[in-house]
C-alpha cells in the first residue's frame, strides 16, 4: 500500500502540466479576478467582500470539480484502457487498491489547493481564515468525497480515455453553474436556486461559504451532499468495470 502510494504519487507529479492546471488555475483566477475587478474587494451590504468567502470558496469548488470530473476519470479510464487494472488483477492485490490510492492522492491535492487558496486570499486580500474551521474541514471532506464519487461514475461510464474528459466537461460545467460560479446563489432566481439546492455542488458550495463566513452550515445542505456521496458512491461501485 505504501509503495503503491509512493509510485502513484510520483506518476501524478510527473504529469505536472495537469497538476499545474488543477492547482494553478483556481489560485490564478482568485488573484486575477480579485485584483482586477473592483467589485470583488468592495464591501457589500452585509459588510462582507466577495474575496472574503464567495470567491475563494468558488475557486475551491473549481479545483475539486477539476479533480473529480477531469483528472480522476482521465487517469482511471486510461488505466482501464491500457490494461493496468487488468494486469493488477492477476496479482494478489485487487485493483480496487489502486483506485483507493488514486482517490486519496486527489483528495490530498484538493486539500493542498484549498490551503493555497485560503492562504492567498488571506495574504493578498486580507480575507479571514475560515471562521468555523471544524465545520469547514468537515464540509470540505464530505463535499470532496461526493464530487470524487461523481468522478468515479464518470470513469465507470466513459468508454475510453479519450471520451472521459468530454463527459467530465459535460458534467462539470453545469455543476459549476449550479454551484454559483457565475451567478452567486444569493441572486439566483428562486426556480434556479431550487435546482441548485439539489445539485450537490450547490449545497456544497453554500455550506463551504457559510462555514468560511462563520455561519453554521445548514443541515439540509449537508444532507443533500451526503446523499450525493451515498448515491454516486453506490453507483460507482455497481457500474465500475475493471477491463
Amino acid at each position: 500500500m505504501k509503495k503503491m502510494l509512493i509510485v502513484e504519487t510520483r506518476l501524478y507529479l510527473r504529469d505536472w502540466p495537469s497538476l499545474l492546471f488543477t492547482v494553478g488555475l483556481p489560485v490564478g483566477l482568485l488573484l486575477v479576478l480579485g485584483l482586477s475587478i473592483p467589485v470583488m474587494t468592495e464591501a457589500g451590504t452585509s459588510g462582507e467582500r466577495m474575496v472574503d468567502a464567495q470567491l475563494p470558496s468558488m475557486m475551491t469548488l473549481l479545483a475539486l470539480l477539476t479533480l473529480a470530473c477531469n483528472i480522476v476519470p482521465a487517469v482511471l479510464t486510461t488505466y482501464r484502457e491500457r490494461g493496468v487494472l487488468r494486469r493488477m488483477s492477476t496479482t494478489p492485490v485487487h485493483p480496487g487498491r489502486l483506485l483507493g490510492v488514486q482517490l486519496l492522492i486527489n483528495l490530498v491535492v484538493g486539500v493542498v489547493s484549498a490551503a493555497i487558496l485560503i492562504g492567498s486570499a488571506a495574504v493578498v486580500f486580507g480575507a479571514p481564515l475560515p471562521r468555523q474551521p471544524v465545520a469547514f474541514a468537515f464540509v470540505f471532506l464530505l463535499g470532496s468525497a461526493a464530487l470524487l464519487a461523481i468522478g468515479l461514475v464518470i470513469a465507470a461510464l466513459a468508454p475510453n480515455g479519450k471520451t472521459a474528459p468530454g463527459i467530465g466537461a459535460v458534467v462539470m460545467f453545469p455543476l459549476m453553474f449550479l454551484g454559483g460560479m457565475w451567478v452567486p446563489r444569493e441572486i439566483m432566481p428562486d426556480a434556479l436556486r431550487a435546482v441548485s439546492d439539489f445539485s450537490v455542488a450547490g449545497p456544497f458550495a453554500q455550506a463551504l461559504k457559510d462555514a468560511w463566513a462563520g455561519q453554521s452550515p445548514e443541515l439540509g445542505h449537508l444532507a443533500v451532499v451526503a446523499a450525493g456521496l451515498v448515491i454516486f458512491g453506490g453507483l460507482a461501485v455497481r457500474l465500475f468495470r475493471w477491463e
Partner: protein
Amino acid sequence: MKIIEVRNLRKQYPNHVAVEDVSFEVAEGEIFGILGPNGAGKTTTVECVAGLRTPDGGTVQVAGLDPHRDRAELRQVLGMQLQSAELPEKIKVSEALDLYASFYPDPADWPDLIERVGLGSKRDTMFKKLSGGQRQRLSVALALVGRPRVAVLDELTTGLDPQARRDTWELVEQVRDSGVTIVLVTHFMEEAERLCDRLALIDAGRVAATDTPSGLIAQVGDEQRVKFRPSAPVDDAVLLALPEVRGVTRSGDQIVVTGSGNLAPTVTLALARQQIVPGDLRIEQATLDDAFLALTGRKLS
C-alpha cells in the same frame, strides 16, 4: 507430476460460446503450448485457468487449487502475462518491478530479475520509451516477480520483430530452466514448434489434438518433398525405383520428389551414382500448419 488439470471447460459470452469443451493437463516443469487461430478460445481458456474468468462448466485445478474458489492462493502460485496489457506511460522499469514485488509476500529479488530479462540498462527508462520487445520482457519479469510455480504467457511475441522474438524465446527457455512451468498461448506455428514440450491445438473452442510438436506432425504422416534442378537429365524411373519415393512430378526443369523416411539422402545418393548434381536442393517436411490443416480442415494463419 501434473500441475494444471482442465476438464471439459466451457465458457459462454452473451453472444457466443468462446470455449466449447477443452480438456488438457500440464506437467510440472514443461512448456505447454496452446496453439490455434485467432478467436479459437485460447485466451479465454487461460483466463479461466488464471481465475480471471469464471467457467460456465467443467473443472480447472492449478497446483491443487480451484482458480475461482481459491483466488487469493492461486495468485501466489500463478503469474500471468496478459495479451496487450500495458503499464502507465511514465512508470520506470525499476518502479514497476519494485511495485509489483510489493504485492507478494515472498517476491523474487527484482534487481536480479531485471538483469535476467536483459533490461539492466533500462532500469530508469519510462515504459513509454521501451521498444515492443523490451515491454514484453518487462511483462515477463512482472509475471515472475512473485516467484510463481506456473507462468502463463499470452501472445508473448505478437507484434515483435524477428530478432526480438528470438530473444524472447530464449528468455522463455531460461525461465523454464529455472523450474517454472510455462503455459504459452500462441498462434505462431514456429514459436510453438521451437519452444513447446507439448501442445494442444485448439480450434473453435475445442481441443483438436494434444501431443508433442513432432507427435502432432507425425499424425499427419511423415510426407516429405525434395525439390531440385538436376545438372543433367534424369529418368523418372531411376527415382521411382527407390523404395522411399512415392511420386515424381516436374515443373519446368525442377523435379519434385515426394515420399517418406530417409527420402533426401536416398535421392541425392541415387543422383550421385548417375553423376548428377541436384542444384537448388530443398527439403520440405510437414509442419504444425499441415497438422492443424489435417486435423481441423482449416489453415492456422
